[in-house]
């Protein structure tokens, strides 16, 4: 909470809270015969922080991967900031979009992965500056400055010239968060970001994310099994099962007074684990 400098470096340009920012419109995703998302509808407003919970295989991670365009929808349309994510209008009809269109929209979105996915052949500094320089066209100096601010914010300023392999898992994940934020995304996707970490390293990562949640109005979509974290940061919790939203509400409501049996049994299983 001490350094606020880092946050100015990444304040998203999204402004007007309340407008629908991400919209899933009857989205279908299949892997072979396995239907992961069945005509899924849900919306997220700008600045909202939403946590997706549910048993594994319920489609939570798929939602993040579709938004990041790591996967393509098999049906329906995803809207981001009023534009279709993987479609374009052609002669009044929605057609599958090319790479160029997706690249433009993708720029609003950043993602942090379960396995960090830092580039092992680059220093921490290069990991964080690579995309600002080569995707946004920042100068080296600007990108360096941004990287230094963000790494200070995640508490790793002194590790800037080390290699990812020299860092612990928790430190690597914090670098990955800095790397995603260096692009100043309007939407941050967090895909089970603490699941691959040793238990004692989890809180450091979650603290960083709490800070970001508190100090920015970045829109967050978060898949996690950390229920306390979900309670602390999210405005809304969505319970998924079989590719559909089973139940949604404020974290207090979902965790204290779940109405659906499937939510109840899922929460019970998570608490016991």
């Amino acid at each position, binding site marked *: 909470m001490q350094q606020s400098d880092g946050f100015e470096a990444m304040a998203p340009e999204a402004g007007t809270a309340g407008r629908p920012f991400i919209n899933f419109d009857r989205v279908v995703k299949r892997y072979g015969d396995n239907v992961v998302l069945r005509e899924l509808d849900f919306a997220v407003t700008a600045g909202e922080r939403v946590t997706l919970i549910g048993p594994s295989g319920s489609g939570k991670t798929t939602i993040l991967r579709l938004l*990041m365009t790591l996967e393509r929808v098999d049906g329906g349309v995803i809207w981001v900031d009023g534009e279709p994510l993987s479609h374009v209008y052609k002669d009044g009809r929605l057609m599958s979009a090319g790479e160029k269109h997706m690249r433009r929209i993708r720029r609003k979105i950043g993602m942090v992965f379960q396995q960090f996915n830092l580039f092992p052949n680059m220093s921490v500094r290069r990991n964080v500056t690579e*995309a600002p320089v*080569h995707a946004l066209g920042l100068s080296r100096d600007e990108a360096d400055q941004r990287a230094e601010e963000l790494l200070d914010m995640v508490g790793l300023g002194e590790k800037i010239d080390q290699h990812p392999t020299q860092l612990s898992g928790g430190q690597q994940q914090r670098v990955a968060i800095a790397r995603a934020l260096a692009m100043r995304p309007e939407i941050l996707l967090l895909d089970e970001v603490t699941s691959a970490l040793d238990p004692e390293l989890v809180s450091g990562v979650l603290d960083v994310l709490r800070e970001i949640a508190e100090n920015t109005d970045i829109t967050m979509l978060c898949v996690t099994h950390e229920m306390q974290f979900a309670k602390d940061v999210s405005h809304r919790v969505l319970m998924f099962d079989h590719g559909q939203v089973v139940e949604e509400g404020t974290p207090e409501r979902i965790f204290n007074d779940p109405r659906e049996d499937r939510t109840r049994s899922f929460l019970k299983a998570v608490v016991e684990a």
Partner: protein
Amino acid sequence: MTWDWQFTFDLLPPLLVGVGYTVQATVLGYLLALAAGLAVALIRRLPGIGRGVFWVMEFIRSTPLLVQLFLAFYVLPDVGIVLSPMVTGVITLGIHYAAYTAEVYRSGIEGVPRGQWEASRALSLPRYRVWGAIVLPQAVRKVIPALGNYLIAMFKDTPLLFAITVPEMLSVAQRLGSQQFRYFEAMTMVGLFFVLVSVPSALLFRYLERRYAAV
């Protein structure tokens, strides 16, 4: 049969000239194999043309180098391509070994974890950076030992250039030996030279592997 030291010393200067050709053919052929192999590995990923390139490389891998050397040496001039024996030899060696290094690069590229591609995509990196700064550096480091093996294999194949009249080491040894019907010293020196170069090369690649493989 006794070892004639005087004859051995007489052999040295002309043999060293042959060594020059051997080393030159190896270095140039290997550089060509590294570059062409990488190009082939990348082209093979393209739809359409990739399939064709695959079959050409399959053909090169399944025919003997000596046949390819003769083909290049005797047939290319017939279609108007006249190259010196040395140039013909270097190009043939390079392309022959490119068929192998291409497979090495391919396995290296496929060994780059999917998460690296996904992170690159999530960061909107342009394609040339994804390949140039992330995928290839990681892929190449992993395959340094395999690429090194092909350098040594190619080096040991250079005596085949004898067949297309390149005056490399073996041809020199053969010529000098035949003058006195004394092959013992000449051929031993050739063998010794190959050991003297191969072993340090293998050690060098082992060092490079230790140095860079720790990605």
